[in-house]
Each structure stands twice: as C-alpha cells, then as structure tokens.
C-alpha cells in the first residue's frame, strides 16, 4: 500500500514546528501503524535524515506510551484501540494521513510527536493511592467486596494513562483520567477511607496544571482505548460535591511526647 503522510516535525520544545509531507510506499496491510513509521524511519536514516520521533513501548496496547493524533482522532480511526494496535489495513490505499502529537498546554511537546505527560503523574501523586505501607496488612479476605463494585472499579482501573481523553477533548480536560482514578478507589472499601481527601486534592492539582473544564462532549469516552465511561466523571463530581459539602475541615494536630 501507498500513503501520503503529513507528520508534525518539531526539533525540540522551543522550536515552532510544522507538518512535513512524506511518502510511505510498499507498506504491508498487515503491518501496524508503528511498523509503517519504522519503515519510514529506516528510509530517513538511509538518507542521513533525522528519523521521526514518537513514543511507543509495549506495542501490545497496554503500556499507554503511544500517543499519536491520527486524522483528527487520538489513536486513529478504530474504537477501543491504541495506536500500536492499529494496522494499516484500516486505511485506504493512497490515503493522506495526518499525524500530530497530543495537544494540551499541560502536555508540552518534547520532540516531533512526543509530549511530556508528567502532569498525569503529578495528579496521581496528589492522592491516587491508598495510604498503606508494605506491612501489617490484614488478610485479603477480611473485607468482602461486592463483585459488582470490584468489577466496576476494575473498569475504571483499566485506564492506561495514555492521555487520549485529554487529546480528544475540545477543552483538553483531564476529567476522565482523574475521574477514573477517583472512581476506582472510591468504589472499593480499601480506598473509601480517604476518598474525601483524595478527590479534593486530585481535582485541585488537576486544576492547577492547566487542563480545561469538562463540557460533557464525551469525546473522551468515544476515544478512550480502554473505553472508560464518563459515568466515572459523574461519580467524581458526586464525590467531590459530597466532600466539599459534608467533609469536616482538615485539622492539624500537634503534640509533644
């Protein structure tokens, strides 16, 4: 197959960047999108040019490293699929394909198609965990968890942190990412203990990083490679409101021994 590629090239964070047109020829319909780019890069290297830099790692749809905005959609045209699991047979022969990096003020471009998503780590660091240490833990079966709750928590926990939700959102909002983590932990008794504190901290951190607001377009749900539902956003809103309205003020206790 033959494709015309219009790929965003940008030398580094301070470079302005722009689309560059390439021809990809002799591409097998069975090759993945990345294998097509590999092939292009080999040609560029042979010509002594700088290959296209893109983020990728596991190439089996689970690590969440890949982050290409293809023809106006994060991870390309297929639903529930990461870029690495996208194959060239999903495109028409001769098609022109636009490849761009995720766009969001909180995800600055590092080079070409690679962006810095450490804002997501910062949000998790604000409270996306249960505060337990590795020791002194009661037996795993001490607290039964309703199967439905565990399953729903899993659905939210399936997030791979790729950022497609932010990339697809007209407002570059991170609500689905944050909502998924808040939901995952709020649904389980283990995470319930600090749920009120968690949701407030995580939302405050999200706000401070410059993501947009949710305007309920649900593009995030449509583009999420793990098909995480926007009900998680509603649950986060619920948790947040309840925490804001009902939670006691946090207090600092100081004492001396």
């Amino acid at each position, binding site marked *: 197959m033959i494709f015309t590629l219009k790929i965003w090239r940008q030398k580094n964070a301070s470079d302005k960047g722009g689309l560059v047109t390439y021809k990809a020829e002799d591409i097998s319909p069975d090759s993945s999108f990345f294998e097509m780019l590999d092939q292009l890069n080999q040609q560029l290297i042979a010509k002594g040019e700088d290959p296209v830099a893109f983020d990728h790692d596991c190439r089996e749809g689970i690590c969440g490293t890949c982050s290409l905005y293809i023809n106006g959609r994060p991870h390309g045209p297929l639903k529930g699929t990461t870029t690495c699991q996208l194959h060239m047979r999903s495109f028409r022969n001769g098609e022109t394909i636009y490849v761009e990096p995720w766009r969001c003020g909180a995800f600055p471009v590092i080079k070409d198609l690679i962006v810095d998503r450490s804002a997501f780590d910062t949000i998790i660091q604000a409270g996306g965990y249960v505060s337990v240490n590795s020791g002194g833990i009661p037996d795993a079966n001490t607290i039964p968890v309703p199967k439905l709750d565990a399953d729903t928590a899993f659905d939210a926990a399936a997030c791979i942190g790729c950022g497609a939700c932010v990339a697809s959102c007209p407002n570059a909002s991170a609500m689905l990412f944050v909502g998924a983590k808040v939901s995952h932990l709020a649904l389980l008794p283990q995470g319930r203990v600090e749920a009120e504190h968690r949701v407030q901290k995580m939302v405050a951190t999200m706000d401070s990083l410059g993501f947009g*607001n949710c305007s309920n377009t649900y593009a995030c749900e449509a583009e999420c490679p793990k098909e995480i539902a926007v009900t998680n956003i509603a649950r986060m809103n619920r948790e947040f409101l309840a925490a804001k309205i009902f939670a006691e003020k946090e207090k600092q206790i100081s004492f001396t021994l």
Partner: protein
Amino acid sequence: MDRSERRTLSSITGKVIMALAGLFLVVFLLVHLGINLLLLADDGGRAFTGAATFMATNPVIRIAEVVLFGGFLIHMMFGVGVSIRNRRSRPVRYQHKSKSETSPLSKYMLHSGIIVFIFLVLHFIDFYFIKVGLVAPPAGIERHDFYHRSLLLFADKGYSAVYLVGFLFLGFHLNHAVQAAFQTIGMNHSKYIDGIKVFSMLYAIIVAGGFMTIPLWFILFR
C-alpha cells in the same frame, strides 16, 4: 504562583454552579412557555393578560424575577469563564479537524448559548424593556399590553422567522444542556442515564417546539 492556582473556586464547583443555574432556568422556561401558550386561546387575550398581570404584580414573582436574572447572569458568566479557560488549555491547536465522536452539538454550547443570548437581548427590547419603560412601546399599544404587542410582532413574517431561529438554537442548547447538567452534578447512573437523556431531548423538543408554535400559529392561522 500560577494564576489558576489562586482561583478560589475549583473547576467542578464552577461547573456545578453553572449547571444548577441552568437547571433553574429550565424550570423557568416551562412556566414561561405555559403562559405563552395562553396566547393561542381564542379569547381575545383575556387568559394571557390575566397571567401576565399576575406575573407582573405578584410580590413573590417579583422576587423570583430578581433570582432569575441572577441565574441568567451566573449561568452566562460561568459559561464564558469556562470557555475562556478551555481555550487557554490548548494553546497550540491541531492542524487536522477533530473527527472524534461527540454528544450531538455538545461542542457548540458556547456558540448556541451566544445565539440564545443575542435572541434574549432582542426579546428584552421587544417586551421587558418596554414594560420597565426603557423602550417606548410602538404606537397604539400600552406598556403592559403584551398580548397586542405579540400580535403585532408576529404579524411581521420576517420577525417571526428570527424568533423561530432563536427557539431552534434554544432547543439545540437545551438538548445537550439538560442531560449535561445532570452529569455535572453527578447524576449519571447506569440505570437512569438513558431516561435522563430521553427526558433531556423531550424537554428540548417540547420547550423549543412549544415556543415555536406561537409564531407559527400566528403566521398560519391569523
């Protein structure tokens, strides 16, 4: 400190206030529609004028009116605020147009909202500003006589068309707005979310359709 960190309201609180104000307006629209439909009664405007007088004189309604203006203001302020922040969050835009599937018309809430706002201003000039004396009533019509004012207005087909377009956009806005407001205040649940979506759409159709009936009625039957 980054300016966004200094904000006192979090993104979710802001959205919820906007949603609650919106839902309040949703209730108001129903009342407004109910009264307007009385225009269609073939009684020379007695029922309609009665209701309009009640609305204009009852002290409770007078207070509610202030709250209503507050609701509009809050809804618009937050709507614009959210939109500004949202545009800032993506300083470099995509080259290729977004092809992501979204909830119908949800991407254009600000646009439809602005059109509705423009329509609202027009509507105020036509009625409310006359009532409060900011605008002089057309010749031969009393300040408080909304019935004849309406008849005169909808006698003009072009003007009726402007109203029809205004209502159409109000419908678009409402269709997404109502269910989105429920989502924002956290009411999205596997059991009743489909119901909310249907309700939202029905509401939008009834309200927009109901308001549109009036100019259409005047064009077609009077």
